[in-house]
């Protein structure tokens, strides 16, 4: 289960990519270049990256409304992502989906989802397809703490356990369902406690520790691939920014947010990589510079991309 240097640097790069992507989205949003709303995952990078690092390239994921990080970690390309957020024809969804509906079937990303819990049965169905086709794939289902109180979550976990489907349910518990604190929405102390009701392993992991997430998810993925069924993992993490772009953040204290910023998963990993002599400061700086260039190129690409044509407005409703 030891991680290679190459993989560790990939994880650092992906977390940094996600952070930079989200901050640029925030900036472009404030500059009125992004329409609608979007849900940023600043602070939650380690969960997305650690979990996806535990998958094979052709494994699948379903994502949430806070899905940019999942898409990037699964191999989503930055130019097409920025283009989608700018509503351009070259975007992942040809400007039809926007932030909450980015999918990239080619990289196994079965889509972000605008409905809380909406992706849970879809992941379960994808896993059922894998079991039927015997294709050896595992589906990783991201969902937030809000989704753990939706009925379909319970329906799906029951069925997945019953049929030993190759699926891993990963809750990114960022402690708030919009403004409502987890303790005010959920009768159990931990989402993972609910695993007992479905006779599957339930594990809690520090969602800001990318390698810890990797190891826990890896174990669950291997179990799923062996045909032993699903697992429920709860990664405890935190979103630094508001729920969406309309959030004034009045339901939590500055001190609380500050405390979690001190647990920044990227700074923490950088420190670890340097301390354990896995990488030098210079190597990591170089990665950051490369990412910075990619981000700027991607934004340029998106800005220079054409708007969708009105004539094609009904394209893709039916196959």
């Amino acid at each position, binding site marked *: 289960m030891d991680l290679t240097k190459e993989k560790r640097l990939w994880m650092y790069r992906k977390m940094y990519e996600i952070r930079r992507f989200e901050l640029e989205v925030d900036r472009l949003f404030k500059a009125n270049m992004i329409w609608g709303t979007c849900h940023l995952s600043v602070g939650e990078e380690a969960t997305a990256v650690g979990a996806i690092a535990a998958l094979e390239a052709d494994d*699948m994921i*379903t994502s949430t409304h806070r899905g940019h990080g999942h898409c990037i970690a699964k191999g989503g390309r930055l130019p097409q992502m920025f283009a989608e957020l700018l509503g351009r024809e070259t*975007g*992942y*969804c*040809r*400007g*039809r*989906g926007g932030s909450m*509906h980015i*999918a990239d*079937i080619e990289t196994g990303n*079965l*889509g972000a*989802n*605008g*409905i809380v819990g*909406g992706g*849970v*049965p*879809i*992941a*379960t*169905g*994808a*896993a*059922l*397809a*894998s079991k*039927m*086709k015997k294709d050896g794939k595992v*589906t990783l289902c991201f969902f937030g703490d809000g989704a753990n109180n939706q*009925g*379909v979550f319970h*329906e*799906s976990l*029951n*069925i997945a356990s*019953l049929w030993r489907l190759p699926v891993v349910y990963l809750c990114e518990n960022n402690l708030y369902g919009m403004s409502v604190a987890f303790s005010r929405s959920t009768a159990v102390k931990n989402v993972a406690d609910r695993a007992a009701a479905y006779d599957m392993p339930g594990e809690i992991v520090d969602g800001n520790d990318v390698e810890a997430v990797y190891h826990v998810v890896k174990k669950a993925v291997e179990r799923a691939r062996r045909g032993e069924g699903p697992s429920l993992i709860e990664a405890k993490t935190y979103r630094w920014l508001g729920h969406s772009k309309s959030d004034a953040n009045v339901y939590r204290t500055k001190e609380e947010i500050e405390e979690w910023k001190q647990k920044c998963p990227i700074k923490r990993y950088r420190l670890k990589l340097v301390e354990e002599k896995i990488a030098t400061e210079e190597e990591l700086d170089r990665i950051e510079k490369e990412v910075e260039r990619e981000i700027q190129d991607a934004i340029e690409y998106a800005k220079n991309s054409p708007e969708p044509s009105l004539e094609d407005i009904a*394209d*893709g*409703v*039916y*196959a």
Partner: protein
Amino acid sequence: MAEKLYIDALREGLREEMQRDESVFLLGEDIGIYGGAFGVTRGLIDEFGEERVIDTPISEQAIVGMAVGAALSGMRPIAEIMFFDFLTLAMDQLINQGAKIRYMFGGKAKVPMVVRAPMGSGTGAAAQHSQSFPGVFAHFPGLKVVIPSTPYDVKGLIKAAIRDDNPVVFAEHKLLYRVKGEVPDEDYVLPLGKADVKRKGRDITIVAGSIMVIRALEAAKELEKEGIDVEVIDPRTLKPLDMRTIIDSVKKTGRVLIVEDDPMSFGWGAEVAAGIAGSEAFDYLDAPVKRLAGLDIPIPYNPNLERHAVPQVENIVEAVRELLR
């Protein structure tokens, strides 16, 4: 050609598609050994095993959601919902997910799935097990909606629905399961979006769907005795809706009665009426467009009340007489 029951023709369609294509499978409550609440899937588990005829827990949203996920991953699932009424439990997965995924994803995904369910009143099951509302689904872009009325149609249309690359809602009327009709043994597929002229006539057009096709044909026989020659058009699919065939018929007869099983208000009959009013057929109308549909009430239990809640043969006969008066 052999005479077969609607339910047997439907099962034959399912069986042939499962034999033809390994990615086709069934998913639903009590569809295995029990054979489905109405017996549609009876015996299929013996032929295809429990891996392809999958009994689920009572979890409608998960059933439909899993069908969406499996369809996205290259399978062709057919989900049975025990009663059409219970589709309300799966609305998010059908309407917000299945129907929209292709468009939302920029046309880069396909969701080839069928959701089958028995609908309609006439069995004394009262309000929560007797509804017909296929028109609701026709409202949502991304879905197709099929309401087959005869054994011949149900076999050809289920095969088309399974082969279609979109989510299809397939609404079977419970009272049709025991209706007999000619069904060829060979493989045939009926196109979705093509209406059928069930009876040719020159005096009046009846547009009827599902069970109402059978009642309209009976009414036509009755009216024939009075020298009234009725044409009966069965749209067969509500989405896509073949307005062309309907408009051509109305241009010929000059009179139209629309008969549906669903409650009247905002039903699909209004869509047909508006389609006629907005077309060149309007100039050919010798009388206002008339609609017969279910009353705007939940289906009652008492047999007399239940019968009264949706159009019967005598109501159709009377409505035609009024239109020709």
